[in-house]
């Protein structure tokens, strides 16, 4: 009765297999695997080939841990103790079923190794991206540098040509050429700026200057472009103390001109507004808000996250020229000045860009 209950309810985890010195199974209790008597143990599983070379020795014991054995659809992970027996004893094997324990261990190892490999993979991807970015910047820097010299030559000779005696038609051609050359020059300058920004070589030249004067100069550049498209152009300044500030005059105006040029480019009728507000002043640092509003086509909302990426043209129309660098340069310059940039847009109604720059007021 006791043996019956024991056989029924005790989970058997240990199996003993007795061999002769030729590796033939003499006896097995078959608690884990059914192993045929009178057959070579190496026929049961290739693992036991290892045992064959140890059968001749005596009084020797060795343990093999964590051996995966699959036999007749039974999969187990076992420890195997081989004992060669003494002179009057047969060699024997003790198989101990540690499947549950090793399965748990496997799950932990899986998690650990996967996390190490995934960390390594992301490191590798970053290196690849960095490599590609460096290549792009080097390429841009070299190409734009090589383009600048012939453009400069072209501009010089067009100026000379303009001063010669030309017919009205010839003068028209010269003006078109000058316009096109300036446009190419502008694109190349954008490439130079972008490669400097992305390679971390762009430095701000902070000096004391009068922002009101700079805005007036900017107005004289931008307004004619707006008027040419029959657009209203208004500037509103609701900020005090902008007469003496410390910052990079050229780059601040570059940000505003880029955004205003875009506004004009994408607006067919209505108005362009530049609004400047001071939001706060603390420790001589004013948070100056620049709003550039237009009544243009608006930007498709799904493009918002990509809007500040280089070479991403918000408007895919072939009629709108440019490389798609303007907003990328603007956002990088804003970031370089520790500022913020965002925009609100409505299709068919217009777009409002907001730039907030921390600007030091010179007292």
């Amino acid at each position, binding site marked *: 009765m006791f043996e019956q209950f024991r056989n029924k309810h005790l989970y058997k985890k240990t199996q003993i297999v007795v061999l002769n010195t030729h590796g033939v199974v003499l006896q097995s209790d078959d608690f884990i695997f059914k192993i045929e008597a009178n057959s070579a143990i190496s026929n049961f599983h290739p693992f036991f*080939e290892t045992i064959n070379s140890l059968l001749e020795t005596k009084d020797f014991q060795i343990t093999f841990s964590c051996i995966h054995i699959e036999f007749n659809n039974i999969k187990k992970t076992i420890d195997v103790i081989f004992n060669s027996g003494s002179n009057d004893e047969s060699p024997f094997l003790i198989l101990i079923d540690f499947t549950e324990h090793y399965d748990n261990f496997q799950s932990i190892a899986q998690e650990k190794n996967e996390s190490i490999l995934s960390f390594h993979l992301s490191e590798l991807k970053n290196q690849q991206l960095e490599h590609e970015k460096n290549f792009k910047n080097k390429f841009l820097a070299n190409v734009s540098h090589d383009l600048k010299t012939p453009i400069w030559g072209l501009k010089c000779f067009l100026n000379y040509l303009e001063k010669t005696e030309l017919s009205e038609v010839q003068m028209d051609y010269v003006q078109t050429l000058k316009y096109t050359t300036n446009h190419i020059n502008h694109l190349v300058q954008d490439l130079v700026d972008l490669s400097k920004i992305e390679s971390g070589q762009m430095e701000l030249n902070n000096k004391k200057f009068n922002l009101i004067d700079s805005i007036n100069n900017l107005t004289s550049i931008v307004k004619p472009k707006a008027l040419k498209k029959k657009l209203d152009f208004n500037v509103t300044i609701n900020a005090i103390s902008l007469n003496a500030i410390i910052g990079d005059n050229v780059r601040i105006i570059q940000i505003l001109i880029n955004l205003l040029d875009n506004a004009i480019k994408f607006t067919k009728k209505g108005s362009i507004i530049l609004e400047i507000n001071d939001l706060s002043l603390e420790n001589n640092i004013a948070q100056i808000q620049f709003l550039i509003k237009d009544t243009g086509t608006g930007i498709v909302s799904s493009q918002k996250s990509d809007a500040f990426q280089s070479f991403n043209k918000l408007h895919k129309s072939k009629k709108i020229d440019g490389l798609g660098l303007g907003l990328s340069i603007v956002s990088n310059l804003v970031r370089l000045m520790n500022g913020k940039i965002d925009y609100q847009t409505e299709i068919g109604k217009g777009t409002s860009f907001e730039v907030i720059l921390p600007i030091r007021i010179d007292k």
Partner: protein
Amino acid sequence: MNSSKKIVLVGNFGVGKSSLMRRFVQNTFSENYTVTIGVHILKKEIRIDEFNFTLIIWDIEGKDDIQKVRPSYLLGTSGFVFVIDPTRPQTFERLNEELDFIKLNYPTAQIVTVCNKSDLINIDEFKERLLKSNTSIDFFASAKQGDEVENIFYTVGMTKENNV
């Protein structure tokens, strides 16, 4: 004549030891990574010239140092296949030291070195890199594509003494 040879795959974890064994024995490949703990053993019969061999291939868990491998796993090894992953320098930075350890402790064993995942790299560039560190690799393989896998096991199946 038929004899069996114990071949052990060694190297860091995740280099593709199990994949190489499965590609050779079962001609299968899975993109899913399953960590090996302990040892999985498969066998395959091969024929070299007029000799038949049964290769008993031990795919043991990956270790960053061969001295950490349980000595019982290496008992009676005829051939070692040392596998590296070219995208992870830590899997081959100490290769020469590891090979010296094997040569010293298993002087009669045949050793082949394998760069798995070769489909992911420019092999010539990688060879140049290895040359600088005075490291050489016998096989540039890909368990995924099956490149060189047969050659690896046929080579390691030859005995060191007479190359058969």
